[in-house]
């Protein structure tokens, strides 16, 4: 019983803010002002449908509300997410395999160097970062975000994958080599499928990294049609008062959260696989 209570508390603590914001997003403007913050008596999807009305401003009550190209934003977000996933996973798998399996001299130090970048706050680096982006010709482009998100997710992904490869019995690949596979085939047909859960863990971590960012997106993407959902919010100073935008991010969050829920088990398994030594 005590355990049940504890679990209920943990769940409530974890879910409350999400519940809270969802409740707000379902409110009509009247209820928003006069209702209770904790529940909604007259749920309406007005805020959500509003999002898809197109990008022209129109009056609502006494104020002119800016409207947003929400569908563009959604598509951009999906694009940036997909790009970051592809770049991060490809680079991480190769780097991790090289570090964890081939173990070139000083590989531990390379891995540490990668990890050490985590204590360098990206947030204080945006001036020079911006210069890099401009030099690469990526300003106001999704490529900039893909690049930066990938550098943020990579060290962790490389760490879990290389820890996994480090302890993966060599004999499994060797068996494939003897059975007639080339090293590349052995990697694709044997090593990659085996690391499925670890790859899921790496992918979800990347999703979390991308999903959490807000600042970088709003700094590096200025053109409204190119913005991601998060970046779009950033430029709207009024956004905090606006139920519509809350509905917007909440909507965008649903597929992400759903994907995380589906793969949650694989995520834990993957992390565990990376942590088991000598397995």
């Amino acid at each position, binding site marked *: 019983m005590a355990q049940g209570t504890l679990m209920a508390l943990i769940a409530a603590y974890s879910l409350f803010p999400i519940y809270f914001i969802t409740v707000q997003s379902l409110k009509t403007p009247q209820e928003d002002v006069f209702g209770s913050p904790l529940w909604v008596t007259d749920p309406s999807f007005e805020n959500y449908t509003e999002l898809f009305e197109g990008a022209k401003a129109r009056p609502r009550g006494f104020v002119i509300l800016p409207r947003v190209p929400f569908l563009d934003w959604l598509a951009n977000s999906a694009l940036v997410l997909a790009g970051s996933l592809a770049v991060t996973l490809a680079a991480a798998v190769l780097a991790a395999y090289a570090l964890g399996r081939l173990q070139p001299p000083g590989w531990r130090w390379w891995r540490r160097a990668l990890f050490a970048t985590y204590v360098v706050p990206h947030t204080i680096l945006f001036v020079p970062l911006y210069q890099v982006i401009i030099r690469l010709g990526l300003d106001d482009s999704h490529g900039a975000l893909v690049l930066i998100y990938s550098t943020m997710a990579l060290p962790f992904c490389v760490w879990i994958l290389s820890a996994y490869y480090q302890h993966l*019995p060599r*004999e*499994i690949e*060797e*068996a*494939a*080599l*003897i*059975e*007639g*596979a*080339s090293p590349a*085939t052995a990697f694709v*047909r*044997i090593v990659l*499928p*085996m690391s*499925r859960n670890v790859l899921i863990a790496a992918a979800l971590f990347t999703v979390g990294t991308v999903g959490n960012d807000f600042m970088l997106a709003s700094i590096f993407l200025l053109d409204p049609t190119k913005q991601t959902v998060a970046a779009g919010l950033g430029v709207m100073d009024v956004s905090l008062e606006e139920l519509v935008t809350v509905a917007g991010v909440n909507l965008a969050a649903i597929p992400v959260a759903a994907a995380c829920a589906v793969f949650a088990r694989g995520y834990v398994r993957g992390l565990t696989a990376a942590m088991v030594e000598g397995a």
Partner: protein
Amino acid sequence: MAQVVMKDLNKKYDEVHAVKDVNLHVRDKEFIVLVGPSGCGKSTTLRMVAGLEEITAGEIAIGDRVVNDLPPKDRDIAMVFQNYALYPHMTVYDNMAFGLKMRKFPKAEILKRVQDAAEILGIQELLKRKPRQLSGGQRQRVAVGRAIVRHPQVFLFDEPLSNLDAKLRVQMRVELKRLHDRLETTAIYVTHDQVEAMTLGDRVVVMKDGWVQQVGEPLELYGRPSNRFVAGFIGSPAMNFVDVGISEANGAVWIETQGLRLKAAADRTDRLRPYKGQKVTLGIRPEDIRLASGSDTPDRTFESVVEVVEPLGSEILLDMKIASAQMVARVEPTVRVKVHEPIKMAINTDRLHFFDLKSEAAI
């Protein structure tokens, strides 16, 4: 079907010289076993044959081809590993079929071969399972099955039974032997277990510190070990060793140490005579020490005290000392002796082994 020839084979890692000048001719259809203590270079040798380790110096030929520069997949070999090395994400069927698929065999042929192999090994029921749903013994069978479906020229085994429990190990040992008789494929088998080596090998190669110590049929190694290391390594319980002095008196050669004075058998005297006045190492197999009876003359007996009795059922082991050296005697199960009591033992002097104190070579 092929012979394997290793010529002056060497392997050096950065600090370790793991394999030194190995010369070995594995005949067609032969089952040869590499045995030696852990770290002696057996696996390294085998892995060079497989193509998994670069050859530092020397040459390996499989059949008539020198394979030094061939990648593993072109050597037409199959290998079974100690940890089975099954692909965890594939079913047993796919595990066994993988090599055939890589070689683009037609589907029907793959199916037939996998089923045949599964039948031979009695794993037909397991084909749809994943490796993690199998017991250790079953995994071992799958690993063997994966090796035999391709009908390779040579089988390589690296301690394939070491992860199994004792009973299963004995059972699989017999099955492997039977399988080899049936398939008649050349096999190189690595183990640290001398019993496995003796029971499986047509010939056995004993290695130590990267050197080959002796190559021979099992009974030859047991009866005529070429040096002290082989003598001590082959046989269980191990041969007893004690340093003795050699002297000559009354036309016979005598072997002496504190509490022991034996007359050398006539066929050894010539070889021992040069060591007169020097010390050599005497080796006695446990079964060559027995309880003395009335007819045993003093020149083949000694007195000692039994320190430990190990009744194994089919035999009894007695632990005692000669001079300060520990001795084990293997006696009939009917013998009854008490611990800590004085006892008189006799030695089969015509089955003694002698080794040079320095070179450790057999005399």
